[in-house]
């Protein structure tokens, strides 16, 4: 069992979903959890297959010389697609998915309105993909702790002290995600 997973006395398997990750499950004993500042977590749920998944992302800030369109949308889309693919592998069906969005606070003034821009990206993704947005708790200036039971779709979200939130930094793509090109 990894450091990001723990088995509680209530037999619930708690799994952290960290920035840059996407996880899915149909196990009623699993609970995904995360703490959000400027980051956004997308919780998707297929109510028929009873499969849920969650990701956690922060888009990269564009260099000051470029406009907002220079945001690294490809990385955000990758984490959305990864989340959906993980769910489809378990048997979820895309057109049945419902989405809940959390986070996107403008908690770190050094990062400007990055929370708002992350929130806008997530809303636009659901709209563009035709995924119904069942609920959102986005923006503001407070940190949030999220617990998501993927097999039931139940989400609990509460405000927490800012000090609990990870010190979000604009995402630099991990080395494993550099868009490697291989010509045969």
């Amino acid at each position, binding site marked *: 069992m990894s450091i990001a997973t723990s088995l509680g006395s209530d037999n619930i398997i708690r799994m952290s979903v960290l920035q840059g990750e996407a996880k899915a499950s149909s196990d009623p004993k699993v609970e995904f959890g995360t703490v959000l500042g400027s980051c956004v977590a997308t919780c998707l749920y297929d109510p028929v297959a009873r499969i849920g998944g969650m990701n956690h992302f922060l888009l990269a800030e564009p260099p000051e010389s470029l406009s907002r*369109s220079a945001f*690294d*949308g*490809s*990385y955000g*889309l*990758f984490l*959305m*697609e*990864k989340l959906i*693919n993980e769910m*489809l592998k378990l048997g979820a069906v895309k057109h049945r998915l419902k989405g809940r969005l959390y986070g996107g606070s403008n908690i770190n003034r050094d990062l400007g309105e990055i929370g708002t821009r992350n929130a806008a990206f997530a809303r*636009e*993704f659901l709209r*563009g*993909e*035709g995924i119904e947005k069942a609920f959102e708790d986005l923006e503001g200036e407070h940190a949030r702790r999220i617990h998501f039971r993927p097999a039931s779709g139940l989400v609990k979200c509460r405000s927490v002290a800012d000090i609990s939130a990870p010190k979000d930094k604009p995402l630099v*793509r991990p080395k494993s*995600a*550099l*868009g*490697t*090109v*291989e*010509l*045969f």
Partner: protein
Amino acid sequence: MSDVNSIPPQSLETTQSSVRVLTVDDSASMRALLRSALTSRGFAVEQAEDGQEALEWLASNEVDVIITDINMPRLDGFGLIEKLRGSALHADRPILVLTTESSNEKKQRAREAGATGWIVKPFDAEKLTTALRRVAH
């Protein structure tokens, strides 16, 4: 002078805009991102939502390079490549796979089906356009 720096910008644009690309992806967001990245770099972009729609479009249209996702409804990327390689019109058409899949097994399957290259999402726009220019005939 004949080095590339002496070519007026207009000529470079004209050269690039002659490359026609068909992108095949079931994600509307990914299609929008690809269209934006490629048109802003001078490519002419056509789009299909899955392998079946791509096949139907390619039956009566010409394109220089195809970029396809793997996981799609109706006809997936592997099926699309196999069908195109079996057709007289597209047997030699460059086909780049653009996917979140990272397994060597899937990459090998794409190679055996006749793919020209394998690009892992999230894509880097500069690397993608360099690959497109290299494989475009």
